């Protein structure tokens, strides 16, 4: 049972256990990636930039401006001193924490959270709000923490294989991604 493709992860089995560990390596497809350090409105605005920069409010400072050829200054720090400006430049650290929606080969879905680590495969320098192409293969090795049915993962237990461009799943998940993401964020009940 060491072939992760043949192993399943059923979160139901762990639902009532505050903390446990996976016993086998499991292969998953990454169905969705969400940065839980950001509010929905912040994520929505990021996506809107890709749809049409003219639809995004220009009343705040966009510090990255990346991804569009029209750099919009959308928000300004108007604190009454220059100290805030200095602080900003020194505190630009990566505050993102990603929550992955995973599906194993037996159609079991679960969540995996980055835990006390920054997973390198999610930090590709992509300017899109979703940092990797969806549908890629991720192997989570045995010994990963499971709490309340969700995985808490760090780089030691993750092996990212990447996407198979010819896969129907990859095509389906990534087609029209901007529109889909905006739609979901604008209609959370969907």
């Amino acid at each position, binding site marked *: 049972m060491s072939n992760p493709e043949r192993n399943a992860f059923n979160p139901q089995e762990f639902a009532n256990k*505050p903390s446990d560990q996976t016993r086998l390596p499991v292969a998953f497809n990454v169905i969705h990636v969400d940065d839980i350090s950001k509010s929905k409105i912040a994520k929505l605005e990021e996506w809107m930039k890709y749809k*049409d920069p003219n*639809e995004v409010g*220009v*009343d705040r400072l966009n510090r990255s401006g990346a991804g569009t050829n*029209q750099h*919009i*200054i959308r928000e300004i720090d108007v604190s009454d001193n*220059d100290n805030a400006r200095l602080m900003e430049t020194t505190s630009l650290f990566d*505050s993102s924490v990603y929550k992955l929606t995973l599906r194993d080969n037996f159609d079991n879905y679960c969540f995996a959270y980055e835990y006390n680590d920054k997973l390198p495969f999610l930090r590709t320098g992509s300017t899109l709000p979703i940092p990797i192409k969806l549908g890629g293969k991720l192997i989570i090795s045995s010994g990963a923490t499971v709490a309340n049915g969700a995985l808490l993962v760090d780089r030691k237990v993750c092996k990212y294989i990447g996407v198979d461009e010819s896969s129907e799943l990859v095509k389906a998940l990534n087609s029209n991604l901007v529109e889909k993401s905006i739609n979901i964020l604008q209609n959370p009940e969907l």
Partner: protein
Amino acid sequence: MKVLCVAEKPSIAKEVTSVLSGGRSTRRDSRSKYNANFDFKFTFPGHGLCDVTMTSVTGHITSMDFPAEYAWGRVPPGRLLDAPVKIQPDKSKLAIHQNIANEARSANYLMIWTDCDREGEAIGYEILEAAKKGNTRLSLSSVWRPHFSHLEKNHILSAARNPQNLNMKTVEAVHCRQEVDLRVGASFTRLLTDILRRSKLVDEIVSYGTCQFPTLGFVVDRYKRVKNFVPEKFWYISTSVEKSNQTVSFSWAKTHFFDRLFVVMLYEECMKSTHGTIKGVTRKPTSNFKPFPLTTVSLQKDCATYFKMSAKEALDAAEKLYQSGWISYPRTETDMFPPEMDLRSIIQTHTQDSRWGHYATSLMTVDGKYGIPRKGRNNDKSHPPIHPVKYVNLETITNDKQRKVYEYVVRRFLACCSTDAKGFQTVAELQWGNETFRASGLEVTEKNYLDVYTYRTWSSTEQLPPFVAGERVNLKSAEVKEGKTSPPNHMTETELIALMDANGIGTDATIAEHIHKIEQRSYITKKKTGKSHIILPTELGMGLIEAFSSISFANNISLSKPFLRKRLESLLKEIEEGRATKEFSLRETISLYKNAFALTAEEQSVLVNEFKKFQT
């Protein structure tokens, strides 16, 4: 040898005359009631003692317009994007034209004492053209252009003795800007007004401006953001520790997350540990930095924040102080003092003041009090940062706004020449399970610049009890708490100025004017709520921006966002730097607006329907 000097304003003519003549001038009335002529003698290097006449204009003396056959109603508005334009004497300033032509008759040289900025250079060219009407021998080669940024005696004398040439590239840039503003402003204003009047939605003229609409766009965007705001829940771990009878709250290093399950899981992990450990205690020196040298935009922002003045009021007050010779030229982007500037002599003049004199004296006499000013990133190479030029007793400034601005300019200058405020920051780091929490205390030890720059505060906080690294502590409280995102604030003038500056809408000199214009045109309204003054769009303003947003223009352009204007501003810079021609820049810009115009005209019904939604 006769030299005709022309200043941009009567007050500047008077001040410069006073310096160059040493107080020995004769005043003559001119055909223009407010623009007197002053006769005196002055020695110009290489030309000896010359007869000088100093006169003035009042800003631009010509205007650009379309020929009469292109008047409203005579041609379709779109024709104005291609129509010929003519530069002609401003009808209200014919007396000034005549005075310059008369005084130029016997002049060998023309000395242009207009402000040393883009518009000042263009006004200089207009003065030359007026002078040529009276003296055809005058040409660009007989124009002297002194460069000055304040009215202090030695500075003015040096500028008069070392004049340069009129910069025609700058003049071309202004002509380009004027032509774009005229063509686009007139065509879209007529189109918009005609469309909305036909639909009986407005009676008055609905004016479009390439700067005003993006400015209005900022206000509308913020209003919508506030109106559409929906609070979102977030969760965080909150802890406190009791030590030496003091309860200390520790903040979670990860701040918060928008996922309750995740926070609860982290909390449960922490709960496996019955106690926390002080991982480390650091006490480090910290500074509160003195301000950068003062630019126009900073002046406007600070006057809005500290004195609730509009950008226009602040700039008007600063202009008056400049014209009185008390502060340097107030339109500048430069936030670094030139190395050769004698800052100490300026400080010296302020030692006599009853309010800040004691502080100024300490800068001159106490070791370690004086500090080299910080250097910003901007240098417009024309003017130094705004600074006091002459000492004035505040009691003698009768205008309340001017008094506040003068005091602010002086205090800001003295702050720039001071040392940073200093203190110590103590940070205690608590480890509980896998999570880190921090508490801090600030002890301010030297206020330095804050003693004179009273607009800012930086105070000591409650000190931390004596935590020791490795110390085991019991948590007094540890819980998962829920919070909610707060709505953004409505737009303030301070923020609007900053946004316009950052997005290249207008220049330091015109930002105030654009805000004032959209208020006059009832596109925005200012409202006082609590301590702050907020800016809201009116129904008319909302309707206009949303109407334009409803049209999908080609090439991703927008008539209510800042991109097009920003693009024009950078083209103007390229003209000034000789990297683009006026013709090329005009062609590029107008062609974009032409496409937008055609689509606006085509999609009239969409525009009207969207506009209607916002009218009650």
